[in-house]
């Protein structure tokens, strides 16, 4: 049996199998997409804002379990928050929810959704 526990927490496995925020978001008002140059992973984040607050979020893309789980957790964390507060979400907040010991080589998998969020809130991206 492969020692997955050490690599992927239950949260990551659960979010990889059944992400809650994966899918297109109709009526998105802020969208951005970026690629991890190391592995080619791609994440597109879609947000719907009511002026100040993020009222809905979704993501699509080709990404590994860690990146997918990170995007899913990020979407959950930002929904309901004002944009300024969402911007303050940091890698540490995601890691706290993911409950995983992420190796340095895979930290970019955790942080890619964060940089996509920043681009979306700055009105950049696709």
């Amino acid at each position, binding site marked *: *049996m*492969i*020692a*997955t526990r*050490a*690599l*992927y927490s239950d949260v990551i*496995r659960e979010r*990889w*199998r059944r992400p809650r925020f994966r899918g297109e978001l109709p009526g998105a008002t802020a969208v951005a997409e970026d690629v991890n140059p*190391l*592995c*080619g*992973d*791609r994440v597109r984040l879609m947000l719907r804002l009511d002026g100040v607050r993020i009222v809905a979020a979704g993501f699509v893309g*080709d*990404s*590994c*379990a*860690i990146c*997918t789980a990170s995007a899913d957790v990020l979407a959950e964390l930002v929904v309901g928050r004002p944009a300024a507060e969402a911007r303050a979400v940091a890698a540490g907040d995601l890691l706290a929810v993911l409950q995983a010991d992420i190796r340095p080589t*895979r930290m970019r*998998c955790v942080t890619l959704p964060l940089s996509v969020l920043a681009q979306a809130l700055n009105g950049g991206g696709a």
Partner: protein
Amino acid sequence: MRLHEITRGDFPVLGRVVNGHPLVYLDSAASSQKPRTVIEAMSQYYARSHANVHRSIHTLGEEATELYEGARDRVQRFIGAQSREEVVLTRGTTDGLNLLADALCAGLAPGDEVLITEMEHHSNIIPWQLAARRQRLALRAVPVTGSGLLDLDALDRLLSARTRVVAFTHVSNVLGTINPVAEVCARARRAGAVTVVDGAQAAPHLALDMSLLGCDFYVFSPHKMLGPTGIGVLWGRRERLEALEPTRGGGEMIKEVWLDRAQWNDLPWRFEPGTPPIAEAVGLTAAVEYLEKLGMDRVGEHERALTRQALAGLAALPGVRVFGPPASVSRGAVVAFAVEGLHPHDVAALLDAEGIAVRAGHHCAMPLMHRLGVVGTARASFSVFNAPDEIDHLVRTVADLRSVL
């Protein structure tokens, strides 16, 4: 006796335990491991003979020069080059391809064409893109067929009177395809184009003979063939090298210098400015010696058997897709594969938890990934030290993967 029974004891790293398991190193296509003779030759050199080459009239300087130039002679024989002047030592495949793209494209006119292929490594794409932008050249690519081969009919259609350079890989680092170098070069020559072959994935596995390949330039990286990082080989047909203006200047590459002009040195030093990778040349000699002692035919045979075993084993697993030509076609020592429902990075991370090192991602071949319709793949690759039971271990572990994440 199978080859790995002879070689395994020569590779100190194979004694390592990784994540509680004996290391199974299946990433030699990215960079191979090193036998003790290579490691010791380099440390002996630093411990006893190090000095700069070509310019020091003292005992150590002469020893270092002899060792450095000795590597050139060794490589000349290894690849069947006509003369030592045809062997330029660079910093690697990427370095050699950049040198060639710069020098070959410098004299081209806007609208001239460079032809590459859809299965190239980025290091045989980007240097041509840069040159094409600079000189306003047209860059075109020969497509790959559904079975992972170069589309030779398309090659004929793409070759034109304006094609100046055809640059392509000998062996694909993803598909394992062995391209028909002599055939492609013959067609390119008829169109009047210069040919550049990326031999990074071929030199470690195939017996090479430059007089049979029919190309004008051939480049490869010793670190993928049991040698050190930081050194590369660029072979060029003498008349082609003679016709090439150097694009990089510095010490060693000149005969005489005035403030406003200089006279270039003879071949091959004309293309080797600055202090070269001397210890790495010593390691290169030891790597070539090691491979020659085993015999390249035997090396190739061993790796082909491992490749066939991995292809058959992985292709038989439900939910696993293998890429590249069918097993009946002779292939290089790589097997790229995908596991349904799993991202390649997770495949590699899960295998690593079992001590198995494979590469995952786009393999520096993003255009090929686009062609295959995937973000990336996992890839196992093989060398002289790999054993059949390691392939079995890989296949068994991959079979378990889908249930764990």
